[in-house]
């Protein structure tokens, strides 16, 4: 699972969606891997405006990354190749191979195994 995907995910339990505590989900026991990919600046430029920057900061912090930019890059900053490359690495090349994502509202844990997160809920949570 990539960090960019995690930025669009919240708790699958319907009742949690309305609670601010359910987003972002929190990484626990995460094993990371760096997988190099072709640099895709167009995609980064297109997707950054849709990223929740505060959530990204929290997640990057939980995963032990050095502090990322305080403010979401905008305008000319999105033409800066260095900024785009760093975001490409963080959002697309960082994989969470094993670990858990937990909901800050209900505490449910979603397991990540071999890079695949499982959001299927047991029947008592549907």
């Amino acid at each position, binding site marked *: 699972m990539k960090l960019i*995907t995690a930025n669009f995910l919240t708790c*699958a339990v319907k009742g949690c969606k309305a609670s601010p505590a359910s987003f972002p989900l929190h990484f626990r026991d995460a094993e990371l891997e760096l997988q190099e990919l072709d640099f895709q600046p167009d995609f980064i430029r297109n*997707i950054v405006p849709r990223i929740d920057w505060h959530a990204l900061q929290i997640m990057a912090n939980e995963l032990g990354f050095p502090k990322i930019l305080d403010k979401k890059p905008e305008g000319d900053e999105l033409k800066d190749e260095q900024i785009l490359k760093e975001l490409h690495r963080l959002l697309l090349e960082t994989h969470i191979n094993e670990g858990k994502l937990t909901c800050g509202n209900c505490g449910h844990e979603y397991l990540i195994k071999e890079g695949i997160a*499982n959001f299927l809920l*047991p029947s*008592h949570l549907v």
Partner: protein
Amino acid sequence: MEYVIRFAQVHETFRRPEIESLAALAGIDLEILYYDQFSPYCVIRVPTEADARTLIARSILAKDIFELWGQGTNYEEVHADVRRRTQHRWDEFKNVSFRFTIDSFCGKRKIEAKRAIIQSFSYVGFDGPIRMKNPDEDFWVLEDFVSDVEVATRTPGNTHAYSEALEPRKIYLGRWIANSSRNIVSKYDLKKRRYISTTSMDAELSLVTANMAHAAPGRLFYDPFVGTGSFCVAAAHFGALTCGSDIDPRSFKGREKNDKEPMGLFTNFQQYGIESKFMDAFSSDLTNTPLLNRQFLDGIVCDPPYGVREGLRVLGTRDGSGREEVIIDGVPAHYRPGYIPPKKPYGFEAMQNDILAFASRTLVTDGRLCMWMPTSIDEDVELLIPMHPHLEVVSVSVQPFNQWSRRLITYRRLPEGQVSDISKARQKGDSEGISADDLNAFRRKVCHQYTLSYAP
């Protein structure tokens, strides 16, 4: 300028929507001057030759595009039209190498007749060398004969008695401009793909779907019923980053996958060298999706389970039991390895409504949803198109089979403040049913028909 598109004579109801989608994607002002489902030739107007090239470059159902030099219902008319349209340009072509080719759709010409037709254009006065390989300019005489299929469709019972020995109904002279992407269909052929299943969508229609949905570089696409990833691969081919999920993770992982082997779906991305266009795959159920209610997707492409070959299921239990958490040896059962969450049958219409509601919440403005759905041949077509106030129906295309057909419906997310007319939409809730047949009118119909036709 006017151009002739030469289509493949397949998937007729997808051809026009595909070209219109590509025009919309590239922002080209397209006017379709002539289109007939029974003819491979379509006459269009676009502002420039560069637009014509852009328009055709990604098309799967078109073969190529020609600058229109003349058209008519007989050669006299064609020659007159060629003179009128192009006489002032003949000098430009005086010394270039060139070639003439005749393409007769559903017609045959003897070699002498072909030669005579080509000679009849000699008044253009080209003095350059004739080159059969890589000429500078490539001229095509396109002859459109009435096909047997058309005769049989338009006048049932009359098979081919009348189509033989007839002259073409329409003739075009075109200057070849550019080829389409039709040649990539064989590259993505399922027979040559590493990881597929019985319900994988074929390469041609997956690629057409990606065109209709405006997959393009820099965009984010999602398939909520990803399976073996046919749509993701097609959207990735056109440059989009793709993400998929499925209620059955075995479908994208691979049923017999060993640990450490890459997941099945990803091996397809590896095969085509588009690994960097793969974003993620995860296990989830669209009805209980973990994706945020935020407009972040450029496109959603899906072929939801019909409930015929694949059972239609969402999370939950059939009788409403299982409300209590189960603890085994002090560990909640759902955290133990090998736990499989219970699933219950779900309604076909309820599923479609969930997809539309999800799309309206997550698509960016002008983002597109392409959804396949099956219909029984004799059902009333208009009533069956699921609708949503925030989604405009862009096109509906039909692929007919023997007892049923499937449709590709393309929607566009409207800007906030605009709503589409949904008065024709079906007004029926069905999430309360229990058995698969109760919930699924399509399944009921198909299974019933087959029972009748196979009864001893």
